[in-house]
C-alpha cells in the first residue's frame, strides 16, 4: 500500500529513516523474530550497531541467523548457512515462540488501529474482499506469544484507520489485553513520520518521536483518528553516516527495499 512520502532532510530516504529508527529500538534486546523486508534490514542493522548480541529468529525455522547477503525472503538460503540452528517449523513455533523465548516479534501491517490491532487479511469484507491480502502467516501467534511486538509500516489515512476491516493479529483490543496472554503486545510502531508508543493505562498509541523534517501536523493528517501526541515529543536523531553506509553498502546494496 503506497503512502505519501513524508518530507525528509536531504541525504537519505524516508524508508532509510524508518529502518534506522527501528534498529535503534532494538538496543538491549536479545532474541528477535524477524519479518521480511524493512524489518529484516532493521534487525540486521541493529546487530551491527546497537545490539551485537541480537539473535535473529526466522519463522522458516532458523535460530541465530548471520545472513551474508540481504535475504530476499524469510526462507532465503543465506539464512541457513552459518546459522546456530535450523529447526522444523513445528519446533520453531512450539518451542521457541510458544515456549516464551522470543523477546521481540516484528510485524508489518496493512491496517492498524489506535490500539495496535492489525489487519493483514482483507480490505473490505472477508467473504467478498476488495483486496485479498496475504493473511496471517505467523503473525497471529507472534502477536500473542512474543514478549512484545514492534510494528514497521507505511503510514497514511488508509493504513492508520479508525476501524480495521479484519483483526488478523490482536494488539491491545479495545484498550486492555487479556492477562493470560504470554506477550505484552505492541510496544512500538515505526512509520516514515515517527515512532509511536502505547499508553499503559489506555492501551492507546501516541506519537512519541517525530523524524527530522516531519511536523506533528503531517503525522495527524496521515492518521484517521484524533492522534495523541506526547507532551515530551522528541525528534529522531538523523541517521549517522555509519548507519547509512551499513544499509547502502552491506545490507541492501541494490536498494531493493530502501530506495
Amino acid at each position, binding site marked *: 500500500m503506497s503512502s505519501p512520502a513524508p518530507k525528509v532532510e536531504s541525504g537519505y530516504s524516508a524508508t532509510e529513516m524508518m529502518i534506522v529508527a527501528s534498529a535503534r529500538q532494538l538496543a538491549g534486546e536479545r532474541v528477535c523474530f524477524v519479518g521480511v523486508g524493512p524489518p529484516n534490514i532493521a534487525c540486521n542493522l541493529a546487530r551491527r550497531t546497537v545490539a551485537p548480541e541480537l539473535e535473529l529468529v526466522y519463522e522458516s525455522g*532458523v535460530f541465530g541467523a548471520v545472513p551474508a547477503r540481504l535475504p530476499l525472503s524469510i526462507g532465503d538460503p543465506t539464512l541457513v548457512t552459518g546459522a546456530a540452528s535450523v529447526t522444523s517449523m*513445528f519446533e520453531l513455533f512450539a518451542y521457541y515462540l510458544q515456549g516464551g523465548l522470543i523477546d521481540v516479534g516484528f510485524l508489518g501491517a496493512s491496517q492498524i488501529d489506535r490500539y495496535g490491532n492489525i489487519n493483514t487479511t482483507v480490505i473490505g469484507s472477508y467473504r467478498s474482499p476488495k483486496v485479498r491480502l496475504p493473511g496471517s502467516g505467523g503473525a497471529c501467534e507472534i502477536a500473542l506469544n512474543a514478549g512484545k511486538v514492534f510494528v514497521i509500516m507505511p503510514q497514511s489515512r488508509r493504513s492508520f484507520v479508525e476501524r480495521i476491516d479484519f483483526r488478523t493479529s490482536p494488539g491491545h483490543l479495545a484498550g486492555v489485553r487479556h492477562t493470560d496472554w504470554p506477550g505484552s503486545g505492541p510496544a512500538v510502531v515505526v512509520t516514515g513520520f515517527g515512532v509511536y508508543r502505547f499508553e499503559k493505562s489506555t492501551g492507546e498509541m501516541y506519537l512519541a518521536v517525530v523524524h527530522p523534517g516531519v511536523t506533528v501536523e503531517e503525522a495527524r493528517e496521515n492518521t484517521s483518528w484524533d492522534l495523541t501526541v506526547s507532551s515530551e515529543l522528541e525528534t529522531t536523531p538523523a541517521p549517522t553516516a555509519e548507519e547509512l553506509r551499513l544499509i547502502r553498502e552491506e545490507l541492501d546494496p541494490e536498494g531493493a527495499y530502501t530506495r
Partner: protein
Amino acid sequence: MTERSSGKVTTMQHAIADLVRDGDAVAIEGFTHLICFAAGHEIIRQRKRDLTLCRLTPDVVYDQMVGAGVAAKLVFSWLGNPGVGSLHAIRRRVERADPAPLELEEYSHFGMVCRYTAGASRLPFFPLRSYSESDLPVANPRIVPIDSPYGDGSVYAVPPLNPDVAIVHAQRADARGDAQIWGLLGCQKEAAFAADRVIVVCEEVVDEEVIRRDPNRTVIPGLIVDAVVEEPKGCHPSYAQGYYDRDNRFYLDWDGIARDADRLEAWLDEWVRGLESHAEYVEKVGAERWARLAPGEAWSDPVNYGKYS
C-alpha cells in the same frame, strides 16, 4: 537397491498419473525451500481437476496451478509471492470469481503446522496458543477454543489435515524412498506422515549406503513413500540448499506475468504445456541462468557415528 522396493523409482509423469486423482487434496510442501515446481507443472500438463491444494504459503507454484485451472480450493496460511507481493491468478479468483470462484480455508502458519502434526499423529485435533481475539476463528469455524481438561485456561484447537497426496522434494533419496533434507525443513515431514500417498522427488537418487551413513539427516523414511522420482533442478524457481539458489528474477517476473490472464496462459503454454518434461524446462532455462544460480561451497564437517561392531 533392494528388489522389494526398487519398483518405487519412476518418472514424474508416471508418479502423477498413478498417484494424483481428480478431486484429491494435494500438498506440495516446502517453506520457500524445496518447492517441487516440477510436480506442479506435471499436474498442469495432465490437466487434473478440482484439486484441493494445501500449503502454508501457496507461493508462485499454486498461482500457476490455480491459473491453469486444476484447483477448486486452497487450504493455506499466507497467500503471497514471498519478497515480491501478490499472487494475481489466485486474487482474480478470490476477488472477482474470474474465471470461477476459489474456495479458501484459512489458518495461521502454526495452525497449519499443527494440522499436519495432528494428521501425522492420527489425533482428532491439535492445541495451540493462537487465534484468541483474532477474527480468524470467525472466518473459519473449524478453529475452535477449548478448555484445558486440567483447569488451567483455554487454548485453540485445529483439526487434522490428512492430504490424499503429499509431494516432497529432497536433496537426495535412495530407491526405497528414504529421503534426506538439509537447510530449511518446513513441515515436509509432518505433511508426508499425514498423507495417504507420498511422492518423494529428489535432486539425486543415491545408494542406500549413502543414506545409512548419515541417518540423522533422513526426514522421511521409505516406509511411507509410494514413488521416488529423480528430477534434478525440480524446484526452480525455488531452490535446493547447496544445489542451486532461488531465482529471484523469476519471482519478480511472475508478478507481471500473472497480472494479465492472457500472458499467464501464454506462459503456461510455452513453459509447461508445450514441454514434455521437466528436463526440457531445465534445458530451456538455459546454462547461463543456471550458472548465475550456482550456490558456491560451504561444507559441514563429517561426524563420527562410531562402528559399535
